[in-house]
């Protein structure tokens, strides 16, 4: 049995099924990160004193990571646009770059975590560090998840382009929605944790 509405929109929703599915998933993700942001606000406003992120964390590395993630967002949307323009070779380059930039983001994050751990700074040391490691760790896991999906679409999953190009293009659009959401979360994490 074929999965319905993978290419064309359902008449009642006006969307292909995967797109509605991923938006509902992203809505649940908003609540997940929202709960943690809310906890952060509660902990911060309730604490007698709270350290400034810029005094404890590495701003240049985090700024570089912001640049890396924003760049990966445009390579992701360009991968989708390349498919829409029927240029598969360009798509492969852009999706490969997106995976590479995700990997680069994680390497930078590993350097940041490594510097903290080698200095004996662990989540158990303070509430600020506990929420910092929780939020950035959860975000990092989301980056890993996105890299796995995008890596699959760069490699074995890209075979679908030759048999069902429209369905494959929709898959990349949906994968892109998730990846941009991960970028969006970082856009808020960066100032909240590092700069305030």
């Amino acid at each position: 049995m074929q999965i319905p509405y993978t290419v064309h929109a359902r008449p009642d929703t006006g969307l292909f099924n995967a797109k509605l599915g991923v938006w509902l998933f992203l809505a649940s993700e908003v609540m997940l990160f929202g709960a943690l942001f809310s906890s952060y606000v509660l902990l911060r406003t309730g604490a007698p004193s709270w350290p400034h992120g810029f005094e404890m964390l590495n701003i240049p590395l985090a700024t570089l990571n912001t640049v890396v993630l924003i760049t990966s967002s445009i390579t992701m949307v360009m991968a989708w646009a390349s498919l829409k323009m029927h240029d598969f070779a360009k798509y492969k380059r852009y999706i490969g770059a997106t995976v590479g930039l995700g990997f680069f983001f994680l390497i930078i994050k590993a350097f940041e975590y490594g510097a903290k751990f080698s200095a004996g700074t662990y989540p158990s040391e303070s509430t600020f560090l506990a929420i910092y490691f929780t939020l950035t760790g959860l975000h990092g896991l989301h980056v890993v998840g996105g890299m796995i999906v995008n890596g699959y679409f760069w490699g074995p999953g890209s075979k679908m382009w030759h048999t069902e190009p429209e369905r494959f293009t929709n898959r990349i659009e949906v994968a892109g929605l998730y990846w941009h959401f991960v970028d969006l979360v970082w856009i808020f994490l960066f100032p909240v944790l590092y700069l305030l």
Partner: protein
Amino acid sequence: MSETDSPEEIKKHVRVYVNVFVALMGLTVVTVAISYLHLSVVPAVILALIVATIKGSLVASYFMHLINEKKLIFATLILTGIFFAALMSLPLIFQNDKFY
């Protein structure tokens, strides 16, 4: 994004994506520059969140194609926004009632 967009239409969109990318980079510089002003907490939080909201809106509107999305997506997001606002107002409620 419409499923009937032609390659020519997409080429126009690509120019917009590049402009959005440049704007996001510029706003990242602004975000970092604000932190070097060493403002007191309230104006620093307000300014940082305004810039982050502008950046987030650009990503959602153009990269996630929300600018011309279907009504059902907006309905889902409005509902999410209501629950998110309730979640974010919890610390305020607890603080005012001094539950902790």
